[in-house]
């Protein structure tokens, strides 16, 4: 176990090292900091002096070591736009993104397990077919388009006049298909509750929750079908196995067989995939936050790109790198714990 832990940690450190070299190379090649600092009228000799003083003439290696030393101490330089430490800017935007990811994960967990299990138990029932059909449609709609559709339906509202308005049934059908569109679709709302540090939460007030619903549903929409299909496939595989047949033959209630015996082994691969998908969700937050103007890290990153705010871009990359590496390591460890058949030391980390 300890050998595996060390191996896994070394792997994580190596990946972080590669990310930091890449991030530094970006910083090194993008723009001229001296240009950013001084005006046009400063003569070349003075620029050279500033460059020398900042150590920009040192070799790549020396500069990288300096960058890495500062980065380990949490100093990533100042954002050009916000005029404050880049890490501070990220810390301010992080809670919004985490809340969004948390809400989306909650939606995924609540819906994917029952639907996945149901459609594995009754693969031929009309409801299962409906779920499977809906899931492939869900996979085929890009997350930003889901977001736009949700905005159109629930925030702007749609008026359907397909049926004759004069008849009572026509008016009723039209009213049934039309939506009012009063859900908020912009930002986090006004009455956030301050928790601690930079963390203002959306989860404590009705208005905050309302603002959270559409972005969270959009973010969940891309992963939910994936998990439904995965859980269904795994569950069907497990239901074929001998031990499930044996449990059934022993006369254990079907509910217990499905939800205790079979579900346990179904969740193993779901955990691995789930860990990887949490990372993927960070990527999708960029899209979701852009559509809903959700003031999280993703929107901040996109703004940083458009403003060529290099320290902020680099810091974001490093932080996201840390998030990915940490989640992957944790997932591997959990997998090792819940599945004792995996020989941790023998398994290439």
């Amino acid at each position, binding site marked *: 176990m300890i050998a595996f832990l060390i191996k896994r940690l070394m792997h994580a450190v190596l*990946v972080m090292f*590669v990310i930091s070299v890449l991030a530094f190379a*970006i910083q090194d*090649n*993008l723009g001229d900091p001296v240009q950013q600092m001084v005006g046009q009228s400063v003569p070349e000799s003075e620029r050279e002096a500033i460059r020398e003083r900042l150590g920009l003439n040192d070799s790549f290696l020396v500069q990288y070591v300096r960058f890495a030393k500062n980065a380990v101490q949490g100093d990533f330089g100042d954002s050009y736009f916000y005029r404050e430490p880049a890490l501070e800017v990220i810390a301010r935007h992080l809670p919004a993104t985490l809340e969004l990811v948390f809400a989306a994960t909650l939606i995924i967990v609540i819906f994917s397990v029952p639907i996945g299990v149901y459609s594995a138990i009754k*693969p*031929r029932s009309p409801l299962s077919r409906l779920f499977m059909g809906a899931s*492939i*449609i869900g*996979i*085929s*709609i*890009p*997350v*930003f*388009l889901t977001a*736009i*559709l949700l*905005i*159109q339906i629930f925030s*702007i509202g749609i008026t359907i006049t397909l049926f004759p308005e004069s008849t009572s049934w026509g008016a009723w059908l039209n009213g049934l298909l039309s939506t009012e569109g009063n859900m908020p679709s912009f930002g986090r709302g006004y009455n956030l509750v301050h928790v601690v540090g930079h963390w203002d939460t959306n989860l404590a007030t009705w208005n905050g929750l309302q603002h959270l619903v559409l972005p969270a549903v959009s973010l969940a929409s891309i992963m939910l079908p994936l998990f439904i299909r995965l859980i269904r*496939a795994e569950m*069907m595989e497990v239901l074929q196995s001998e031990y499930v047949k044996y449990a059934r033959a022993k006369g254990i209630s079907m509910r217990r067989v499905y939800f205790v015996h079979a579900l346990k082994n179904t969740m193993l691969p779901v955990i691995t995939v789930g860990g*990887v998908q949490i*990372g*993927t969700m*960070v*990527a*999708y937050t*960029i*899209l979701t936050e*852009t*559509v809903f103007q959700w003031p999280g890290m993703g929107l901040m*990153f*996109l703004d940083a*790109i*458009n403003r*060529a705010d*290099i320290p902020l*871009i680099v810091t974001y*990359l490093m932080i*996201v790198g840390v998030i*990915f*590496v940490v989640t*992957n390591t944790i997932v591997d460890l959990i997998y090792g714990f819940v599945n004792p058949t995996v020989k941790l030391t023998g398994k*290439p980390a």
Partner: protein
Amino acid sequence: MTTPTTTTAPSRWERLRDSYLWYSFKRDRTAQLCFAVFICLVIAAFSAPLLAPTNPYDLAQIDIMSSELPPFWVEGADERFGLGTDAQGRDLLSIILYGTRVSLLIGFGAVILQALLGVTFGLMAGYLGGRVDAFLMRLADIQLSFSTLMVAIVVGAVVKATMGSAFYSQYAVLMLVLIIGLAEWPQYARTVRASVLAEKNKEYVDAARVMGLRSKRIMFRHVLPNTMSPIFVISTVQIANAIISEAALSFLGLGMPETHPSLGSLIKAGFDYIQSGSWWITLIPGAVLIVLVLSINLLGDWLRDVMNPRLYKG
């Protein structure tokens, strides 16, 4: 294209007609429908210059007076523009046809690049084994752990920041093919490696080796043809993914410029006007994108069921 009728040379026509693939295609209504929809979209997109009423790349078409006109079934429509116009007064139908062409072009291009890289690396990793295998697969693992979309967004952002927006939008098609191609090769590499590992200990490979053939020849001429069906299956999914990735990048402003829009940049451009009630500029290209991706995904599902009996369960 990954469909049976087009990938097989005429000399193999007989063999195709007797195959299980053709048999199940004949019996599967969904597959037929999806294939028809997909082919229609491809043909319509690539003959856009012939079909489109106007040429949206022609700057003379931009006419603010006729901007944001709704499609024909909505009140206030102009009969010149069947599906209405976008914010710059360009005919939406024409620009969607051209946009679909751009999206498909990038999708196919990126998948070809992915396949070239992934198949080569996967063959090398699986057949040569040892250090080559360890290195390539570790690289693939790391890249996959970062989600392909994230890699694409980061690379796109960095390239755009380094080269400048003007340069980036001038070579946007090439850039997107490169970015999406480089971001997604591990999918192919893993699939190919897995089937190579299953193949490489079979007798025909031993026979070829005993005959003194070079590794390269054995890899590409003997082993590769036997790993084709999984490659086929993931290719469909990968094309759909590449089209979605392209749309996502364009939506973020890291893809096609609005002068040469893809479906993604059309959706992005239209999104700015959705609050003012002009839903068609964003939702009609969106619908085309969904239909395109959905038909490819359903075809991929069908293909996986047919070609991979291990997974076939109800």
